[in-house]
């Protein structure tokens, strides 16, 4: 039997909470699978090189992950993630991800991009999966076809993370000092679970005796219990879950503080972060936003997180603060100040780039002089 095709999968997709659907389908279709591996500086540099400077870190990571698979696999699996909940859609950058990657790496890698949109029902998603592997499949196609329908149906139930570097439960059980604060870490899985991109935030917190709760630790029922709080459901799948998890923790008094890990320039988080900040303030919960991008210095994150944890620890028993909202904003990425950025050599070329190194400060004139 000819050796079966090797399909590469970008590492970030591992943290999405439903990767078992495509892992099972592709494996049962007779393909060999390989994830692109944990993020390294090289993957980030590759990502920066082949994506637009305005893209957020996660988009650059996925570009870098695809680029790192070049020449090592027969196809790269990169689905068009549209909708798996029936209501909320994915961020527009995921809606257009295959087209963005094809625009910069189209001649170097061949993509398998089934369109996953459960609003059109499981049959349409199954058909799209089968369509994407037509002509490539081994003998196993028949077996995969029958299992596919219930695999697709299971998209709705997020799996727990086996890939999490520090499973939340471990931090709770392993004898964390009883009076250590509990912190809810809010953020998208492809950031929070990515050791490099999150600069080991969860691991560092656990290491300082913090009991860490993460969004996947909040049950579906608890997420649903706060939906009445919103005039409109937040549009995007992960943002909706992150905001609801934050609202739940505020309501249930389950945490002593919230840390929101967000990517610099993230569109949906401009809304999600403000909703969370307002809710934390209303509940008197300390709230810290850590915004990261490829220029973020680890030292910056560590000092600010430690200050936040100290502040929570100094109060005996870590009980809540009446109204005092330690809302340490400002983004870590030395944005706005000249930073020696190891990743991007480009200075500001007039157009404000995420990394302000070299931006000509006199350029930032008042936004608008009313012309006579």
């Amino acid at each position: 039997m000819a050796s079966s095709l090797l399909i590469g999968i970008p590492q970030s997709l591992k943290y999405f909470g439903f990767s078992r659907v495509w892992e099972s389908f592709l494996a049962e279709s007779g393909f060999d699978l390989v994830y692109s591996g944990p993020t390294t500086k090289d993957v980030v540099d590759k990502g920066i090189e082949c994506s637009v400077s305005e893209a957020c870190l996660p988009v650059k990571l996925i570009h870098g992950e695809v680029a790192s698979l070049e020449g090592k696999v027969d196809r790269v699996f990169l689905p068009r993630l549209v909708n798996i909940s029936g209501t909320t859609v994915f961020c527009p950058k995921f809606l257009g991800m295959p087209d963005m990657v094809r625009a910069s790496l189209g001649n170097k890698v061949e993509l398998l991009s089934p369109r996953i949109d459960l609003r059109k029902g499981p049959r349409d998603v199954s058909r799209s999966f089968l369509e994407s592997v037509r002509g490539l499949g081994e003998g196993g196609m028949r077996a995969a076809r029958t299992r596919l329908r219930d695999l697709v149906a299971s998209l709705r139930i997020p799996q727990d993370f086996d890939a999490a570097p520090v499973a939340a439960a471990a931090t709770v059980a392993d004898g964390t000092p009883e009076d250590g604060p509990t912190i809810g870490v809010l953020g998208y899985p492809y950031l929070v679970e990515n050791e490099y991109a999150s600069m080991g935030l969860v691991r560092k917190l656990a290491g300082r005796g913090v009991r860490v709760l993460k969004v996947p630790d909040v049950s579906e029922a608890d997420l649903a219990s706060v939906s009445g709080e919103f005039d409109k459901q937040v549009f995007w799948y992960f943002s909706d879950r992150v905001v609801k998890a934050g609202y739940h923790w505020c309501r249930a008094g389950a945490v002593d503080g919230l840390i929101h890990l967000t990517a610099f320039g993230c569109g949906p988080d401009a809304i999600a972060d403000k909703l969370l900040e307002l809710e934390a303030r209303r509940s008197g919960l300390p709230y810290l936003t850590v915004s990261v991008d490829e220029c973020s210095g680890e030292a910056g994150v560590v000092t600010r997180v430690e200050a936040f944890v100290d502040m929570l620890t100094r109060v005996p028993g870590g009980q809540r603060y009446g109204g005092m909202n330690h809302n340490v904003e400002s983004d870590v990425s030395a944005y706005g100040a000249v930073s020696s950025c190891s990743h991007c050599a480009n200075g500001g070329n007039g157009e404000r780039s995420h990394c302000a190194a070299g931006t000509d400060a006199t350029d930032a004139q008042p936004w608008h002089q009313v012309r006579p």
Partner: protein
Amino acid sequence: MPLEPTQRTLNLGTKYGPEFACLPLKITLGTYMEGIQRGADTIVTSGGVGPCRAGYYSALHKKILSGVGCDVRMVVFEPPMSHKRDTLAKVKMLNSAHLSGLSIIELLYPVYAELLALDHLERALRRAMPRETVKGASEAGYKKGVEMVFAAAGTRQIREAEAEGLRLLRSTPQDETADPVRIGMVGEIYVLLEPASNLYMERVLGELGAEVHKSMYLTNWIMGNVVVEGGGFSARKAAAKYLPEMVGGHGQDSVGNTVIYAEQGLDGVIQLAPFTCIPEIVAKAVLARVSEEHSIPVLSFFLDEQTGEAGMRTRLEAFVDMLKTRKAGAARAVSASRNNKREPLRVIS
């Protein structure tokens, strides 16, 4: 009625709005707050359903405004074609003067005529400016025309004012032999249509001798989105090869319109978008491939409150110069090939 956005409006929106919000969100928030300060107690705005952020503005604004203690009544119009009952209910609620359906439409008609007149005047200005032999003459003619349209009352007078304005513009001394570089402008609707937000880029381009073609005017947007939802069919069809998915905002339109402009033989395209604008970031990535395959240079601007005019102007000057040399080069190639009867170059006609 809201005033034209000013620096103060933006400062308000930036102060109370999220840092990474896109420019339109900050400006609309600032406009609401200025309106409230001038005594408004009701905000009428548009909703939307995503996937980009516009549709969520109203819900976020409401939370921000109540967070700073102004609980103002917000009437949000969702896309009428898919929210018929809801739209009618809101019109009735706002219709305190109990105007009949017919009279409401009669009211809207001159407003639309006025918008149409302003769009036509602007197009004429964009055509006249790079050809004017007396610097600033077309701008003056345009301003005069706009004043006449604003002064006119009723559809007939508006039409007359428009005709007079157009005549004025056409009568400015122009060099008809001029063959200016033609630049298409694509991107997010707010920064395309609000000159204050794009630092008067069209005027700068006109001054640099370029003829600007805008892919979107308010009137064809109104026809596009309000009357026929997703009206930009031709642009979306042209984008299909590069970006087949609806990514929200005008991402697909930016890609499709660039393909159309390339096929129409324009010399270059400028993409305009607010900083962090999600659909336009997707479009910018895809436009790199369109630019290569259709050999049309594309320059992207992501604007926000810190964008400097000097920086923008230098990039525009470099872009227009490049297009001029490229256009001259192409013209020389045609005449050369015609002389020695070789297979003529595939020239952008």
